[in-house]
């Protein structure tokens, strides 16, 4: 997986209305620039390429990712991610389990956004087997997945801060995330592997305590976000380490299949909740945050703003929660969907999460394929890091928000 510094820029065939084309050129952003290596015939210094192994047991790689970095001095010439250390054959396992049994395995893919991972599979099976889900279940799904998005972004904010050197943010992010985990524990009895969104609805109805916890949390969230902004966003050290760093253009992002906050940071308000509305999202009023520089700082800002938008959705869904069943009353123990296939895609905290499922009419799917956002987002890392210093590598990798369980599956 080696890449040249120059990649061919393909003209994008997206309509110009969808994104701003007059975005400021990356070189004009205040902040640091990529290092340019200059040849100097007078100097007698010999420079040799230096290969550095980062990971797989390195705390900054957010899991078990190995990066083979070719350095010239401190400047990165090449960066090749080496994946597969966390490969657990979830696609194959899914093909050998009954349709309901797939859900708990998806918890282990994107373990910071399990609710969304559950949801994609549940919807795929429901579409295959033509199961109608009660409206209350759809609302509950939206509530938990948006809460999960906030939890995921809080965790990311903390981890990113710690990567950059702001370790305090790490503790603050975890402190608030804990409140969301408490809510999930209340409704599904688990703190990380929820398995809450099931085929045909959700596992359990919410309780009054859950409602109270959510409202309390949403009350304090704005003040906490302000704290983070004061602590991190306004900090010149943080700005200097992220502004302009690892910037990519919109065309590059699109050609690599980058989605989610990374794409929004490049100036394109592409969000499947708006573009291809699913579930009950059209009923809610929310915005898609967009920034135009495509650098680490803008990715940070997108995620911080997304938390506010998610909070808006949660409160609207909670207020408008209809009465009724939370799951389909009579569901066969062994679902046998008719022959066919389906592709479901949803906006997970990290980007587009897709599930392709093919049924051969038996109780097990014939083929399951997961399109996970972390994997596609990571693919642009070699391009993003070239020309930056080794210290920036940590910032750039952190800003991608990879979950290795999601990359390797």
């Amino acid at each position, binding site marked *: 997986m080696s890449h040249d510094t120059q990649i061919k820029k393909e003209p994008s065939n997206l309509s110009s209305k969808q994104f701003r084309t007059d975005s400021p050129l990356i070189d004009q952003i205040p*902040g*640091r*620039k990529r*290092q*340019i*290596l*200059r*040849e*100097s*015939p007078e*100097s*007698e*210094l*010999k*420079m*040799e*390429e230096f290969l550095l192994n980062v990971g797989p047991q390195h705390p900054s790689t957010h899991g078990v990712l190995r990066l083979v970095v070719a350095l*010239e*001095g401190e*400047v990165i010439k090449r960066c090749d991610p080496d994946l597969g250390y966390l490969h657990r054959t979830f696609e194959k396992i899914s093909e050998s*389990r009954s349709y*309901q*049994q*797939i*859900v*708990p*395995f998806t918890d*282990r893919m994107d373990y910071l956004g399990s609710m969304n991972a559950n949801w994609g599979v549940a919807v795929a099976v429901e579409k295959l087997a033509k199961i109608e889900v009660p409206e209350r279940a759809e609302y509950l799904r939206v509530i938990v997945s948006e809460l999960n998005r906030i939890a995921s972004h809080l965790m990311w904010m903390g981890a990113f801060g710690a990567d950059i050197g*702001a370790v*305090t943010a790490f503790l603050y992010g975890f*402190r608030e995330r*804990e409140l969301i985990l408490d809510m999930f*524990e*209340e409704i*599904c*009895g*688990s703190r990380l*592997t929820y*398995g809450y969104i099931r085929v045909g609805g959700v*596992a*359990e*109805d919410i*309780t*009054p*305590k859950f409602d109270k916890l959510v409202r309390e949390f949403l009350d304090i969230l704005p003040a906490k976000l302000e*704290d983070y902004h*004061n*602590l991190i966003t*306004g*900090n*010149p*050290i943080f700005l*200097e380490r992220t502004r302009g760093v690892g910037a990519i253009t919109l065309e590059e992002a699109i050609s690599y299949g980058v989605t989610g906050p990374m794409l929004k940071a490049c100036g394109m308000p592409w969000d499947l909740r708006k573009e291809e509305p699913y579930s009950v999202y059209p009923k809610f009023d929310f915005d898609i945050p967009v920034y135009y520089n495509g650098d680490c700082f803008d990715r940070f800002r997108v995620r911080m703003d997304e938390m506010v938008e998610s909070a808006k959705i949660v409160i609207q869904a909670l207020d408008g929660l209809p009465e009724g069943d939370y799951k389909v009353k009579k569901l066969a*123990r062994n679902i046998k969907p008719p022959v066919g296939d389906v592709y479901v895609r949803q906006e997970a905290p990290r980007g587009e999460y897709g599930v392709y499922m093919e049924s051969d009419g038996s109780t097990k799917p014939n083929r399951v394929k997961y399109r996970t956002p972390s994997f596609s987002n990571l693919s642009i890392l070699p391009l993003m890091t070239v020309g930056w210093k080794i210290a920036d590598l940590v910032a750039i990798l952190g800003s991608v928000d990879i979950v290795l369980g999601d990359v390797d599956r």
Partner: protein
Amino acid sequence: MAVSVKNITVPRGKNWVDNTYIIPVIKGLIITLRHMFKKPIVLYYPENKKVLPPNYRGLHMLTRDEQGREKCVACEMCSTACPADCIRIVANDSGDVWKDNFENREKHPIVFEIDELRCIFCGMCVEACPEDAIDMTDMHNLADYTRQDFIYDKERLLGVYDEYIKRHPDHAKRRDGEFKAMKNSSYFSVVSVENAKKPGGH
């Protein structure tokens, strides 16, 4: 490879105060130091423990009925539902030997094993059971010396129930419609969690 020399431009602030980053550091300290006067959010574990909800998905148990017999009828619904394939059940007809104890049952398990290392704690076995015979507890601090020790047999799983029911005597109501009411009561406060005693123990 050719010789290369890098031109490095170090970004500089307007004056020396900016370059020392003293002001942002002080600003940050104001925010962090404020937290010194707030209530700590951490618990002194293991002396203090978090209150876990009654639907917490921890170690399994096999429940007993009023007469102290295991409720399980060896229908194998749970092992069929289990995505991790970690429940092993060998059923026996109730037969003559069991007539007195299990008069109204066709079958009961003579072997019921759960491999807690294979288990992914998804709770699907609990949902599948028609007799409420299998349930999950709030015990999560499982530790043992060998892999074999993690295979919980019937006696141990019943032992977990005995242990659990001491702390939560009205657990039986959990599935009887009063579940919701219980969830919001303060009844479920965990004081100490200990592992179930192993028969013949270590």
